[in-house]
């Protein structure tokens, strides 16, 4: 293995380790168990969204609507519990259904209507940002709010639902972190170890060849958007459980952060392609960076700057250093 290969394979992981060491040295509180748990919890939501978008990247697509799906799920969960006064199970079920439904519509638009993926999901993003505000006329949802139809919302967030975002196993590990790890493992197994996952990679690298080999390309592409939508809804559920209210938000920052995580993931272990492990590491990378910088009192704009710089470096790792890919394409 040459030095160059080594840099490509392990460079990013070393960078991550170096960063952890640096923050630990500068800020004694950084290398502690609570701090590690904090970081995992802060990346749980974007991480889950990023894993969803990874699935669409694998089939050569893209899902711009995930941030809006997540905030729509946030509003829907709040609406179901506070206005309709239903339980946690109904809230979770309806949100996941909504996410899968949006994913299905995205997939049908892209595969059946032949709308380019960026445009279809962009349209869906706007639809959702508007739609989530219509039932409450633009207001946030909380117990005691006045309803447009008259009366006052009496329901509350069920404790079982809030536990999704707040309960801690053994008083240490928040449930949302467990969900992140679970989703990461499931997506990794699905993409790397099953026939379906391999076919999805095949579609991503050459859809025509995959189709000629007998793959139902359309179904797999639609499936990827359904996965993405469902995972985004799961992220929204966790967000709602953490906030304990239905906040009006566009979710654009969620979208950007999760896309950044997925793209950084290209560089991990020199994969040069979307992959679940890389995405998880990418999300962690961004989380550690922001947590450390905040502990050092760095203002928010420097954090955006650093986040962007990391993304650029990761993309350089992916596209420039992995010479094989570049030569193969040339």
């Amino acid at each position, binding site marked *: 293995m040459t030095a160059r290969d080594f840099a490509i394979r392990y460079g990013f992981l070393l960078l991550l380790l170096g960063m952890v060491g640096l923050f630990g040295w500068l800020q004694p509180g950084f290398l502690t168990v609570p701090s590690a748990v904090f970081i995992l919890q802060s990346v749980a939501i974007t991480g889950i969204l990023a894993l969803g978008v990874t699935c669409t990247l694998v089939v050569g697509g893209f899902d711009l609507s995930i941030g809006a799906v997540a905030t729509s799920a946030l509003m829907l969960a709040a609406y179901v519990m506070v206005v309709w006064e239903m339980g946690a199970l109904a809230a979770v079920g309806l949100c996941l259904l909504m996410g899968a439904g949006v994913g299905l519509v995205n997939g049908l638009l892209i595969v059946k209507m032949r709308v380019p993926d960026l445009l279809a999901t962009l349209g869906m993003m706007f639809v959702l940002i508007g739609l989530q505000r219509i039932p409450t*006329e633009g207001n946030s949802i909380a117990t005691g709010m*006045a309803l*447009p139809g008259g009366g006052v919302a009496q329901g509350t967030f069920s404790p079982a639902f809030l536990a999704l975002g707040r309960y801690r196993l053994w008083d240490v590990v928040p449930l949302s972190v467990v969900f992140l790890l679970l989703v990461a493992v499931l997506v990794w197994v699905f993409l790397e170890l099953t026939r379906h996952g391999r076919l999805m990679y095949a579609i991503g690298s050459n859809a025509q060849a995959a189709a000629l080999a007998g793959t139902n390309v359309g179904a797999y592409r639609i499936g990827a958007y359904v996965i993405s939508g469902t995972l985004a809804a799961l992220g929204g559920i966790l967000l709602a459980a*953490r906030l304990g209210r239905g906040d009006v938000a566009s979710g654009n920052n969620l979208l950007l952060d999760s896309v950044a995580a997925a793209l950084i993931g290209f560089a991990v272990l020199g994969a040069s392609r979307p992959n679940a492990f890389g995405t998880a590491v990418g999300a962690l990378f961004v989380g550690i960076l922001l947590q450390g910088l905040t502990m050092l009192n760095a*203002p*928010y704009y420097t954090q955006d700057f650093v986040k962007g710089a990391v993304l650029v470096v990761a993309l350089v790792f992916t596209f420039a250093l992995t010479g094989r890919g570049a030569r193969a394409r040339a």
Partner: protein
Amino acid sequence: MITRRTLGRVAAALLASAALPALAQDRPAPFDNPGEVEIALVRYLSTGDFFQAYLAGVQRQADALGVSLRVFDSRQDAAVQADMVDQAIALGVDGIIIQHGLTESMREAAQRALDAGIPVVAFDVDVENEQIPQIEQSDRDLARLVLEQAVEDNGEEWVAAYVYVPGIAPLDRRNEVWVEFKERYPGIQEVAQFGTLDNPIANSVANQARAVLSANPNVQVVFAPYNEFARGVKIAVDEAGMSDRVSIYSADISTADIGAMREPGSAWKATAATNPAVVGEVSVRALAMLMAGEDPGRQVIVPPSLITQAQLNEENISSMEELSARIPAFAHADVAAPDWMPLPSAPQD
């Protein structure tokens, strides 16, 4: 927001305007014949609880006067907002309220309205024009009220963390007060400053606040002068299990915030707020005075009220409506209210 109560109020206002032509005639022109008066509200910001409540207040006062209201919503597009002022001029409205916006884009547009003989008032945007009254919620008073409460609760010596994003006018004004306070009470030691407007803001601020709290476990007071910030800090404090050691002081309030402040053992101790609906009412009243040829003054300031956790618990308040009903200072501001001005009926029957 249309509740049964507001519907009732609207109905009452309609009845009143139909039944009391004699009263209306006592008002100065053009409000002696309000059916033919139309005012325009040109908005820059409109999404969120604050702006919804503001609009409700504008509507309420317009109804009380019996004038019709036309709402233009530019959705944070400065150029569109300027065009909308021109549109309002072309439609021949009798008065214009400019709600937020950028000085650079609104200065000329507002001047064009004045040139067309249309009175203009501006809320929270400085259009640099002597003839245009500024409606303001006093951010400085807001910050001062809540910080005085923090000193009363915690003494003059504490370790503070501060949430701030520079470049946002109301936050900048609140920041000035914080800087003065730190000078006046040298015992206040600020160990961390953070803040972000990445949305969902509460979630992003919660992530930051947790990093800050674990780096500075000795923090006693978090000054978070914007309710979205305070929500995020409260999530972080709860997650870190520090509710008994940390107190949060904020500004602004909503129904959900009242719930958060009243949770058992909540770290969110006090907030100061101006009722956005009242600001909306005052905007219309100031415009009406101007249209009637009276002078509301160059600056019309709507005073804020202090709202503490203890007060909410004592009065058993759980929503903005109840807050308005039980804390009269919050429900009504005696600003821009000459004798002839019809006021919207009190929120409680």
